[in-house]
């Protein structure tokens, strides 16, 4: 079976100068939920729009369900559901009218009522789009993508700007689509979203993939599954990163303006040793937390920057 989505050495330059995507390759299997994770401006949207056939790549090849975009674009579009990063649907049409409009473009669409039911929009069926909340609009955007009964769902930052409850509702919808056999490609700059939803993901920065794998894999590569964060008075008396690096079980250390974070394998061995050092230096702990390592840590480790910093 051909991969659902496949691209090789994708490049995109705007106006011959700015290289938004510089040599990106991906292979996504049917039934997978794949995430493109990265800060704003990393090239996620450019990549997904090239895969969606909405932008022509400067170089590289794309295959969707085994077909290129030159083969028969309309035939291919019948099998894709797309939600763009930001589409302002017509405000003066009702939810039902909007879904029916999109349904009319497909040969064999699902019924609008069924999609509204699934997206929890039935109550709002006759409300104008202009009157919907952010979460409802986003669900409507996904509804217009699902009404064509797609094999692949492309979601570009589906939950950006949504409240936590709306985000969870959308996650449920994506999971449901995947469970019924669909393939999902989504972009996000939320780590928790990628960790919860995606089977595999690629971290994108400056138009290239800097790491790829399952969320657990990527976290494994940090060395430690746990993060110990602390700060001490006097910044450890000029004690550099090296002091902390030698503590038992520490895989890596980062110093962010006096807040140290250690990736550790076994916090129960590292923390007593850490306290001892602090004590010897006659310093005092200002802050100490431990937590599970997240994709955010992976990203910071790879780039030295936080995701939101862009």
């Amino acid at each position: 079976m051909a991969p659902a989505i496949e691209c090789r050495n994708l490049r995109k330059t705007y106006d011959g100068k700015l290289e938004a995507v510089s040599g990106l390759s991906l292979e996504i299997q049917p039934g997978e939920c794949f995430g493109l994770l990265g800060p704003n401006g990393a090239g996620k949207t450019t990549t997904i729009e090239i895969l969606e056939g909405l932008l022509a790549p400067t170089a590289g090849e794309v295959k969707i369900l085994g077909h290129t975009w030159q083969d028969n674009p309309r035939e291919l579009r019948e099998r894709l559901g797309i939600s763009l990063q930001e589409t302002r649907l017509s405000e003066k049409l009702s939810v039902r009218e909007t879904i029916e409009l999109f349904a009319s473009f497909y040969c064999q669409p699902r019924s609008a009522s069924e999609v509204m039911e699934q997206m929890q929009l039935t109550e709002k069926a006759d409300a104008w789009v202009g009157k919907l909340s952010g979460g409802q609009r986003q669900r409507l955007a996904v509804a217009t993508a699902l009404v064509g009964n797609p094999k692949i769902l492309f979601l570009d930052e589906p939950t950006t700007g949504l409240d936590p409850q709306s985000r969870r509702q959308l996650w449920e919808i994506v999971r449901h689509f995947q469970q019924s056999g669909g393939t999902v490609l989504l972009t996000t700059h939320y780590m928790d979203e990628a960790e919860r939803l995606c089977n595999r993901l690629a971290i994108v920065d400056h138009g290239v993939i800097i790491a790829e794998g399952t969320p657990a894999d990527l976290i494994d590569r940090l060395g430690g599954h746990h993060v110990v964060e602390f700060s001490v008075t006097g910044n450890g008396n000029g004690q550099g990163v090296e002091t902390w690096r030698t503590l038992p079980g520490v895989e890596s250390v980062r110093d962010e303006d006096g807040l140290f974070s250690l990736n550790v394998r076994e916090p129960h061995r590292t923390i007593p040793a850490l306290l001892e050092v602090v004590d010897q230096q006659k310093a005092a702990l200002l802050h100490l937390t431990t937590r599970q390592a997240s994709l955010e840590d992976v990203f910071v480790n790879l780039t030295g920057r936080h995701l939101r910093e862009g």
Partner: protein
Amino acid sequence: MTVAQQAPPAEIEEPTSAPALRNGRWAGYWHVLLARMRELQREPEVVFWVFGFPILLALGLGIAFRNKPADLTNIAIIDSAGAQDALAGIEHSPGQAKIHAQVLDSATALKGLRLGKFDMVVEPDGKAGFRYHYDPARPESVLSHAEVDDVLQAAAGRKDPVPTTSIANSEPGSRYIDFLIPGLLGMNLMNSGMWGIGFALVDMRQRKLLKRFVATPMRRGDFLMALASSRLVLMFIEVALLLGFGVLFFHMRVLGSYLSILFLGAVGAVAFGGIGLLTASRAQKIESVSGLINLVMMPMWIFSGVFFSYERFPAVVIPFIKALPLTALNDALRATILEGASLASQSGQLLVLILWGGISFVLAVRWFRWT
């Protein structure tokens, strides 16, 4: 060589749930048209600008320039010997209703002329003749000069060598409102074609709605056709409203066939739709397309004979004016509505419209940006 050349392309797999519907070839076209009509109908401003405004304009201008009796000529006669004879001559003349004369002293009369209170001043020269003071730069003064001279000569016993009769002609068909309504119709078709297509498309592009549409299997040609069709439906209503208003309110007479008028309206609406499409083919922001649309329409508002005849412009520019699409549409509408001209006699105008619309459409389709 790619991997897929060895492996057969993925088969179209069975849908995960049985499709509830099967759409026909034209489902997309009808739904876009329906959505467009719904949106327009739900936008009160659009309803006003497309339908209400032209009627208000016709009403306002029709009343302002309604046919009044010709203006009275106001003259003064300088008080001297012979002044009373002149006054009597004017008051007893058959046309005296149009001339209002009064006898005043020389200084007051000449001051009144300077200030425009009097159109002319008659000064008896004391030898049974008159001197006329008038301003050759003021049309009403020149008119007054001719009229008063005529009356005074007749009163003095002039015999006209040829008997003449004048017939007042202010029947429906030759009034300003009759000239105006076809012009407003043409202007309205231009306005709503340009805005209805040009503005609407850029608005959809700016909202990324066009991009969202082309991300579906929507047929792009059908989409543009549906937009054009929505213009035709509106055109039908616009023509019916404005003509109906002229007929009912101003007792306008429509001499041409309604079918010809609708045909001209359709050609005009589609031609301006094509020009609107061209203006909208690249613009990313509604601000920039608004400027472009106004730039395109402005010369036609002025030159194409909406409110007054373009024959008033110098003869050298008239061929250029006649090449403008709105001039062609207005001329054809006037000839058809007011004179009952046949479509065949308007083939020149139709050709101008078709060329403008056709060339714009071809260029627009070549340049059009969906994203």
